[in-house]
């Protein structure tokens, strides 16, 4: 058997480093989002929030993580052990997978190589995000079922049907955007916005629908029916303890971070610096790429803040209200948005 495997090791190393950096970054940001959540909640409720661990309580996420690690791990006797562990792992994996197609910036020139700040610039970028998001249901469903608990199962089924319902409106809202760019490639979408202005100007309704659906996909208030503590005890992760519970909670924050990044990429110009023509600045391309990355992060942090703000402002929906909103309001609205966009594009072309 002749093995002639040619591998471009520099390329593999480059991608490996990029993946490592982005995953670590999203983990750290998710960690500090938990801290930000407490601080924002405290601020909105006129309290102080965590301030004991470290200066301004900045070490609080580490303390929380340590606490979760050292808690006793309980696996219910009557549950399927493998599936019980698979649930949180799947939630975590699907949460981190989405970052692969987001363009985090233009490319860097280092060591004579062009290093693109996007892990995979695939032809089907948006569909890839959709695929991974639709897989996010499994983490909840498997975990809820494997807990062998009526409350968990009910919460899992609720969560899954909610996520499936809101995916439809999300897809329809995105179709209008795709008609404008004519491509599903994330890098092309960003370049289109750099050239023609951000999509939020042309698609305000589409963005609104997308944002509401993103809230629902992340299981955030006002759509956190899957973990409604006062009707379902604690939701689908009721039987979980220790770090497995931590994984579920953490996956939610990673999802928030990634969906904020997706929103800023799709509707708010991605790494585009607003109001200026940075191509005329005449500075080093590497520096420009880093500034673009910082700008994208700033936009992402703004959306993260909006997520937290909504959580501590708006009460939870009732389940039938949730389904009504999804199927009878958002989907028709998204359809109208799509038809109007199509008509305008046709009219402009004539």
């Amino acid at each position, binding site marked *: *058997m*002749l*093995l*002639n*495997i*040619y*591998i471009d090791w520099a390329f593999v190393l480059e991608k490996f480093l990029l993946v490592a950096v982005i995953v670590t970054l999203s983990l750290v940001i998710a960690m500090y989002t938990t801290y930000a959540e407490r601080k924002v909640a405290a601020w909105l409720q006129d309290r102080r929030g965590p301030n004991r661990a470290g200066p301004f309580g900045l070490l609080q996420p580490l303390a929380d993580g340590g606490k979760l690690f050292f808690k006793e791990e309980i696996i219910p006797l009557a549950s*399927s052990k493998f*599936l019980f562990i698979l649930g949180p792992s799947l939630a975590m994996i699907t949460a981190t997978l989405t970052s692969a197609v987001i363009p985090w910036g233009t490319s860097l020139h280092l060591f004579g190589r062009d290093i693109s700040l996007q892990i995979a610039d*695939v*032809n*089907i970028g948006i*569909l*890839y995000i*959709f*695929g991974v998001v*639709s*897989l996010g*249901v*499994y983490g909840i*469903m*498997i975990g809820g*079922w494997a807990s062998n608990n009526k409350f968990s*199962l009910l919460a*899992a*089924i609720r969560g*899954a*049907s909610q996520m*499936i319902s809101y*995916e439809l409106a999300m897809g329809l809202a995105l179709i209008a955007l795709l008609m404008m760019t004519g*491509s*599903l490639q994330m890098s092309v979408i960003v370049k289109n916005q750099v050239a023609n202005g951000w999509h939020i100007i042309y698609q305000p309704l589409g963005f609104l629908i997308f944002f509401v659906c993103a809230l629902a996909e992340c299981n955030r208030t006002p759509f956190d029916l899957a973990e409604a503590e006062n009707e379902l005890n604690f939701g689908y992760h009721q039987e979980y303890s220790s770090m497995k519970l931590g994984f579920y909670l953490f996956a939610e924050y990673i999802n928030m971070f990634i969906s904020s990044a997706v929103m800023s990429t799709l509707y708010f110009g991605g790494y585009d610096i607003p109001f200026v023509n940075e191509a005329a600045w005449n500075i080093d391309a590497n520096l420009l790429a880093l500034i673009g990355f910082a700008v994208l992060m700033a936009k992402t942090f703004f959306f993260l803040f909006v997520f937290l703000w909504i959580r501590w402002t708006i009460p939870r929906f009732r389940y039938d209200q949730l389904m009504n909103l999804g199927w009878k309001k958002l989907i028709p609205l998204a359809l109208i948005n799509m038809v109007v966009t199509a008509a305008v594009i046709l009219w402009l072309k004539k």
Partner: protein
Amino acid sequence: MNITQILVGSLSVITLFSALMVIISRNPVHSVLWLIVTFFSISGHYIVLNAQFLAIVNIIVYAGAIMVLFLFVIMLMNLNRETEPQKNKWLKLAGVLSGGSLLLVIVAALHTGDIKAMAQVKEGDIGLIGTLGKELFSTYVVPFEISSILFLSAMVGAVVIGKKE
């Protein structure tokens, strides 16, 4: 042997093994999970054949929607390994035998055929979304519209059947 062949070979092993586990597993939930693994490996095959659009549609439609429906129904009915008692061993044997003989017959037929054609892997742009979309909305626009009517009628049908009278 190059890296593509290794990839396709391992994908095939995963595909066949997980498909076998679908029909062997006693617990329906495990069957569903193995079927999802099967769909993923088939999507892997599509990616190797550079049919990117079909690969992702396979994941979204099958793994993301259809299998969730299956899981829903199984979880709601609370099916587990006791719901399907095994009675007749001979019936099972007959099923395996007939399936095996079908495999045998077609393999024998293929063996005499001596087929030399090759499938193009990793390149070619017919599987990309732009190419497929243009064809779909020009030549195949009527079937496409009809399939949307099919969906509508399936939806109405499912609601009517599932309603409590």
